């Protein structure tokens, strides 16, 4: 930027007065810049604060149990024995199942909205799907607890047990009575929650496919599905994967919806129908009542593990999407 104050090409009283007037802005001007820069640095401070405070809070636990904390599943506050295996297992498995369900649905909706849906309906349906993302997670939780879980318990789970329960390998996944709440219920609620994230990112990247490419494929005699499968999806692969990872990050960290419907049992059961727990559900349920440094520390250590896992997933997602933006910009 040109330094206005030193710009004295004209001479005379008026220009001197003008330069003086401008000089008055010099200090406020740099103060404003410093202010904005400090505010930007606050973002880094927050991240640093989160990491440092979690590490500090979790320290007593890692000092007591070492890395056994990650590998054992006993969770006994009375005897002060803590292991993170059950919540980690619950978090990872429920999120992965949610992803497996939401991925085809989310991409399917995006395909429908970009290729098949009549123009006047595109906006309303798109908005409706995005409303799913706007509903607070506690609402999913309360709905899951009072409507969805009883429905699954009465109608879906007995059917699953009947159909798969006797089979040799898969049977173990559907063992036990239909509790209603449990790993599978949590995963299903999660899949509805992350659906809109997958859809909206997929739709955005689908729209970046050059019409020329699609038209060439149609010109060769491809059907709509073949164009989607062999032109649109390969072209947008990176973006779609980025969106899916972003959704996975959401699912891993989701708290309230899961807390209501997972059953909160510290056990690695193997069956998808059994009650389980996740990292976030454990923290949400037990933190306010936790007494003793070790108990609180164990919960904070869980938080640290969760933050670490989601950070990796989200960072991966962002890097993929960033690469895409660069390609689009070039």
């Amino acid at each position, binding site marked *: 930027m040109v330094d*206005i104050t030193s710009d004295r090409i004209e001479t005379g009283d008026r220009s001197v007065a003008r330069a003086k007037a401008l000089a008055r802005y010099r200090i406020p001007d740099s103060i404003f810049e410093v202010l904005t*820069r400090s505010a930007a640095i606050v*973002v880094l401070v927050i991240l640093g604060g989160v990491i440092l405070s979690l590490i500090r809070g979790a320290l007593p636990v890692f000092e007591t149990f070492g890395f056994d904390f990650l590998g054992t599943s006993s969770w006994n506050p009375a005897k002060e024995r803590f292991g993170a295996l059950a919540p980690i297992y619950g978090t990872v498995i429920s999120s992965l199942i949610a992803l497996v369900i939401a991925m085809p649905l989310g991409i399917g909706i995006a395909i429908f909205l970009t290729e098949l849906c009549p123009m006047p309906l595109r906006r309303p349906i798109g908005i409706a*799907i995005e409303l799913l993302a706007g509903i*607070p997670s*506690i609402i999913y939780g309360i709905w899951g607890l009072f409507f969805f879980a009883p429905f699954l318990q009465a109608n879906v789970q007995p059917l699953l047990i009947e159909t798969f329960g006797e089979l040799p390998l898969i049977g173990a996944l559907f063992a036990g009575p239909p509790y209603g709440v449990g790993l599978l219920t949590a995963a299903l609620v999660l899949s509805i929650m992350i659906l809109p994230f997958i859809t909206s990112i997929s739709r955005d990247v689908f729209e970046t496919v050059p019409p020329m490419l699609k038209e060439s494929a149609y010109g060769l005699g491809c059907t709509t*599905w073949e164009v989607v499968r062999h032109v649109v999806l390969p072209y947008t692969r990176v973006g779609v994967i980025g969106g899916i990872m972003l959704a996975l990050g959401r699912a891993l960290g989701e708290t309230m919806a899961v807390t209501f419907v997972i059953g909160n049992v510290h056990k690695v059961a193997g069956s998808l129908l059994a009650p389980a727990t996740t990292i976030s559900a454990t923290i949400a349920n037990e933190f306010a009542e936790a007494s003793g440094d070790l108990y609180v520390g164990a919960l904070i250590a869980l938080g640290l593990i969760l933050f670490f896992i989601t950070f990796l997933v989200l960072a991966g997602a962002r890097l993929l999407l960033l690469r895409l933006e660069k390609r689009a910009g070039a």
Partner: protein
Amino acid sequence: MALTEAQLAKYRRRARGGRIRMALSLGATLVGLTALALILGALVSKGIAGLNLAVFTETTPPPGSTGGLLNPIVGSVLMTLIAVAIGTPLGILAGTWLAEYGAHSKLAGVIRFINDILLSAPSIVIGLFIYELMVRPVGRFSALAGAVALSVIVIPVVLRTTEDMLRLVPTQLREAAFALGMPRSLVIRRVVYKAASTGMVTGVLLAVARISGETAPLLFTALNNQFFNADLTQPTASLPVVIFQFAMSPYKQWQDLAWAGALLITFTVLALSVFARALSSRTK
């Protein structure tokens, strides 16, 4: 050249397979819409049944008796306002630096990346952070801690929208202002902000929508309070936390109140986001 019978048959098969797969995409959409309808339907039918005047005028009842949601409503509004008051200026200033000053610097790239991660970071972890920062040292849960936890969620949302909106302002507008001899900070505040104001308001609205339903970060910062409280240094009730407590309880009156609260929150959030969307589509 005419197609042979075999080629035609093959093409028909491909077309049929394609139609089936495209029909599946319609099915996926129907699943999504059905889920939305089921959730909203349950919410409206259960929520309206629990909604009455007492919900807004009475405080939360002890188990087994009737009451309202006055204290959690006031607590939620209070904490949301403070969170926005803290988070908005920080988010706007930081977004300004990213768009106007630091735009292409390495630091800006790093901040942008970290901010995007904070945008979807688990909110319960942010609750733990504020607990370690503001609750543990004092030994007391407080509305202020809850508000700060919420403001940590506000900052990334406002930052992101501010930066995006400022980038949409045409460079020529800035150049015209510079040519008139305006200092840089004035160009930003008087010209760029003015041009981007609608978009920036949208960002704040979205942030409010986001935090109105947040439960996890309040569970161990503001905690809960059965009584009316406007003292910021005391534990304070909020709608989401009360819904959590009441819905998980075995008492019928509490569950009814939880549904009424759930309806209130959802419609506030959806109204805010629809309003924000209307604002932003008007500018485009």
